[in-house]
């Protein structure tokens, strides 16, 4: 009996220790296990999507690869966990993944009450609507009475409720757990409208039977700043993820690309030298090697390269830089200086 009590007590105590150990030291854990565990979507072309060989590509995936490059000097040292919109925060809170890079909108509730921190914005998006061309609809304000397919557990679901209420329009929401189910329900005619972030609409339209039969309406009904998320209370890891994104933006601003990074490294510009680690010790302060940014740019590229490769005008998605251009080009992408 006594033994049983003691072991039960130890059990409870062990649970306590195991659970409280999950908060700090993500970088050390990552270094110890030898790879970054990155939470991504279940397949959203341009953002995080596995190709036919099973390799993940996309603008969100590039951020994970950049983390691998910064920490290990090897952008392939990343493992991916595909997550539904519903599962994503629990997976991060429970420590199943180290970073969530899954077209996730930064909102006040998510930042404050989930025990998570948003480490910047790698894509500025907004919510839009897609309908069949044959309906002859030109504006979202004509959508009263429509049934609308979307993902459950997203800001999209809340925005659409706000928008229709504000404009005193009726609607029926049909919320699925997986993005693919939403697409197939819209394609089968269960819904008149498909709503999600506008970039997502362009991306998912490629999966429809006849992509040409559908149009994306001009209205953007919300602000959707998408960015990587980490657990709250681990500032070292938070800093690293934040500066990984900033390094890519700074590189674009300074004109450093994966092609010319070696050449630039030998140059005299002190700002570029600081970024590439030949001057100063910024990597050390982040807990990684001083050539962290060099590795990111060499292996993954700068922000512009990542954008053009995954979602830019030459890809099937054909999205213009728009608000995602550098601040110096009239966009919103702005990174604090590395100094």
């Amino acid at each position, binding site marked *: *009996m006594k033994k*049983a*009590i003691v072991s*039960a007590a130890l*059990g*409870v105590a062990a*649970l*306590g220790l195991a*659970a*409280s150990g*999950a*908060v700090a030291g993500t970088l050390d854990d990552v270094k110890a296990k030898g790879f970054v565990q990155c939470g991504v979507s279940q397949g959203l072309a341009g953002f995080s999507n596995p190709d036919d060989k099973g390799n993940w590509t996309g603008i969100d995936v590039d951020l994970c690869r950049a983390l691998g490059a910064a920490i290990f000097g090897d952008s392939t040292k990343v493992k991916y966990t595909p997550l539904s*919109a*519903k599962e994503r*925060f*629990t997976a991060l*809170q429970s420590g199943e993944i180290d970073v969530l890079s899954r077209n996730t909108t930064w909102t006040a*509730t*998510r930042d404050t*009450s*989930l*025990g998570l921190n948003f480490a910047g914005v790698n894509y500025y998006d907004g919510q839009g609507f897609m309908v069949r061309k044959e*309906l002859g609809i030109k504006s979202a304000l*004509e959508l*009263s*009475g*429509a*049934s609308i397919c979307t993902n*459950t*557990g*997203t800001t999209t*679901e*809340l925005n*659409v*409720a*706000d928008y*229709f*209420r504000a404009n005193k329009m*009726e*609607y*029926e*929401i*049909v*919320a*699925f*757990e997986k993005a693919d*189910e939403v697409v*197939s*329900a819209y394609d*089968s*005619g*269960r*819904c*008149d409208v498909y709503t999600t972030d506008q970039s997502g609409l362009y991306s998912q339209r490629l999966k429809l039977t006849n992509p040409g039969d559908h149009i994306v309406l001009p209205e953007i009904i919300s602000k959707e700043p998408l960015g990587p998320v980490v*657990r*709250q*209370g681990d500032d070292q890891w938070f800093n690293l993820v934040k500066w990984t994104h900033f390094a890519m933006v700074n590189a674009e601003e300074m004109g450093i690309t994966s092609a010319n990074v070696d050449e630039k490294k030998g140059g005299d510009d002190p700002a570029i030298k600081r970024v590439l680690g030949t001057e100063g010790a910024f990597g050390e302060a982040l807990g990684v090697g001083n050539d962290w940014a060099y590795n990111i740019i060499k292996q993954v590229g700068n922000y512009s390269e990542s954008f053009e490769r995954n979602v830019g005008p030459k890809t099937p998605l054909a999205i213009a830089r728009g608000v995602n251009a550098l601040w110096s080009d009239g966009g919103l992408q702005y990174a604090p200086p590395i100094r």
Partner: protein
Amino acid sequence: MAEENTASTTEKPKVALLNDPKFRSYIFQGLLLAVIVWFFWGLASNAAHNLAKAGIAQGFGFLDKSAGFGINFSPFIDYVETSSYGTVFWVGLQNTLLIAVIGIILATILGFTVGVARLSSNWVVAKVATVYVEALRNVPLLLQILIWYKGVGALLPSVKNTVDMGAFGQLNTKAWFAPKVVLADGAGLVFGAFVAACVITYFINRWATRRQMLTGQTFPVFLTAIALMVLLPLITYFLKGQPMSLEYATLGRFGPKGGARVIPELMAMLVALTTYTAAFIAEIVRAGILAVPAGQSEASAALGLQRGQALRLVVIPQAMRVIIPPLTSQYLNLTKNSSLAVAIAYPDLMAVFGGTALNQTGQAVEILSMTMLTYLAISLVTAMFMNWYNSRMTLVER
């Protein structure tokens, strides 16, 4: 030894308190209880501590907050986007219970029919029933739900080709737009008439049973009941100037709108759960009937009862004793399986509360424990009711 035993029957034995078996058992049970309570308290306080440390919101305050998202199906509860998360819970529970109750009724009817058909002397009927049972219960339920929703659902007419079913409303891929009953003043009396018919039926039944006991004369109770339940409300309906009317869907820009909308997700869930569970119930019914000795059927035949009468009056009542306990667990299975609705966007408890609400608030511990306790409560209530029914059906020996 013998002396002690005789002593114990007359007066309390004088043993040390510690050696008293009763006292000792209290002590150990008390200790065990304390350990269990302590263990769960440890789990709870540990979880609370860690959630606080990780900066995750806690407590049930979120239930009063406005949910902000829409739910497309809530037949009995008024739900708007400004409703609270608490209302979301009730809407989810309502939709789960709706599926469970309708599913249980339909599965019971279908299951009994198929179960009896399997024992039919008609070779074709028996084989068809066998094929049904073997096919349905050996394919995973989730797969069947998807077949009904995506496979059969794809056969539904598109919005442009909406089928008009006349009095039954319209049908297309978005919903079955059934006629909606609109109540006016005096509609309550019509319902009252129906209730009155039920009460009268109850007394007629009692009188008929007593008369049959005394005189042996039978009375057509069933037909009388049907006549009463149809005629009484109908007469009231016309006397009160037709206080109920049917409202049909009208054509809007996106196809029919209005009426009572039955979404395809509900239909797919119901069909899948009913046919799947009915296959199991059929086997239970067959086993129950086979458990009644053949002598019972032969005896009833010897008494001159027809085959149907023998089945209804002699065999089934005895078979019920074997059928009810496993039937209960099929009812529980059906209720719990309804949570698979999450796969096809039917807004049940697990989908809207255990899913959407969880994701919007991030309070996994609170929401999942509430959802868990709710399913537990539904199951326990069902089991309690079935146990009560079982005790009524047990053989009363005279």
